[in-house]
């Protein structure tokens, strides 16, 4: 009990002693989790009616100067090592496969222009994109098949995933660097028919008016990553 009292002075809010306990709970949950947690999941472990958002913001402020920070990715909360300590932790890093320049460009085009078809990616890059490039990106889990464009040939549309936001530490797609510049220059929309053009990229899983859902055959066709992997 003495510990809890001491705790209040450091972490908690003196006027609201329960708050310290709630912060401890949030801390423990976020710490233990293997993946980012949304506020709903966090709130479910706190007394009913607890407003979890201000608590998380407080925790974020408390962790800001430390070696571990509380960050929001893809609308969820997660603890991550502080970015300025990257040099320290490089030993720990898993060797990630280096993406080819084509893959990096394609990833960026999917991110900024989604939902986008392969033909539209090619239009922007001015070269044909090999199937392998998209397969590599699908394999990273950063892009995903969204649906099909309601257009001749019903081409597959691509978009980014939650893993993309999480990997690049983005809270939402709107946090993409330079997005405002792109929008300002009118460069976001791909060269698609004017009536389909939507000026802002969106990873909203809801399909757009010009998209239709993937059919069951798409899974069988091996458009999804697993097959590509087996070929390696």
């Amino acid at each position, binding site marked *: 009990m003495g510990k809890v009292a001491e705790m209040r002075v450091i972490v908690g809010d003196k006027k609201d002693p329960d708050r310290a306990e709630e912060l401890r709970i949030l801390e423990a949950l976020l*710490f*233990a*989790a*293997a993946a980012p947690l949304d506020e709903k999941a966090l709130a479910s472990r706190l007394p009913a009616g607890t407003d979890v958002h201000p608590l998380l913001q407080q925790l974020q402020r408390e962790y800001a100067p430390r070696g571990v920070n509380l960050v929001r990715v893809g609308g969820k909360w*997660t*603890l*991550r*090592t*502080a*970015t300025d300590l*990257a040099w320290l*932790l490089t030993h*720990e*890093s*898993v060797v*990630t496969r*280096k*993406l*080819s*320049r*084509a893959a*990096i*460009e394609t*990833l*960026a*085009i999917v*991110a*900024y222009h989604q939902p986008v078809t392969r033909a539209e990616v090619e239009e*922007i*890059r*001015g*070269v*044909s994109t090999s199937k392998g490039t998209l397969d590599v990106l699908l394999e990273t889990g950063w892009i995903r098949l969204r649906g099909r464009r309601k257009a001749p040939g019903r081409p597959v549309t691509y978009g980014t995933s939650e893993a993309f936001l*999480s*990997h*690049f*530490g*983005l809270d939402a797609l709107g946090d*993409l*660097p*330079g*997005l405002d*510049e*792109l929008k300002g*220059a009118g*460069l976001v929309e791909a*060269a698609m028919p004017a009536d389909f053009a939507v000026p802002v990229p969106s990873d909203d899983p809801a399909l757009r008016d010009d998209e239709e859902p993937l059919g069951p055959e798409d899974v069988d066709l091996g458009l999804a990553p697993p097959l590509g992997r087996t070929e390696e």
Partner: protein
Amino acid sequence: MNAEQDFESDLPERASDEPSLMVDVEGFEGPLDLLLTLARQQKVDLAKISILALADQYLAFIEEARKMRLELAADYLVMAAWLAYLKSRLLLPEQHPSEGVSAEEMANALARRLRRLEAIRQFAEQLLNRPQLGRDVFQRGQPEPIAEVKHPQWSATMYDLLSAYAARRQIRSRSVVRVAKRTVWSLAEAREALERLIGQTMDWSPLDQYLVAYMTDPSTVTTVLASSFAAALEMIREGRLEAHQQGAFSPLYLRRKQNAAGDPSQGSAADSGNG
């Protein structure tokens, strides 16, 4: 990191080194990339780029490359042809400005494509410079997984309880009354078998041997032997069989009665059967 560093270091090298630029077509990611690199050499805002000058540079580059290397991908040639066409239209006064897309608009569209590609490259680089998970920032190394504890909620109804109880009690109370039916070889069955078997032979044979076919099931061996023995005794008494035994518990030998000449067996069999 390296990927974008390569990207960074490639461009100035190409841009500043004209001769290598001339031959290094393979270093370009297609005609648009080549155009973009050439545009950078103009060192002006892409919005104010001279498409005419760019077209000239591109065509000159392709010309050089064809002289030296010859192997150019088709899309470079398509672009060259398109640029030559655009150049001619830009130089000549527009004849039918109302028809289709004007040369001005075509040039603007190309400039816009170049700007868009450049912007995407720039932002791809910025994206990759962000702290990346597993490279710059790290998540929990030892996540503590949430354990699933299942509490069984047992269900049973009053009906289950009562019907199980009543059924079990009744089974037990009835099982005392019932006696299992036993399988017995009747005397008639035994006699019929003996007559059939012994009627065929004149030699002494042990009783067991006659009955071997009937004694496969161990649970019926006793009843088969007992009934057959009783039936044999009866047939001896009738004078239809002879028996002899060496001593107590030694095999019992049976044969058809020898001194019954002709076919008396049939007649007496019929008699005894009737009696």
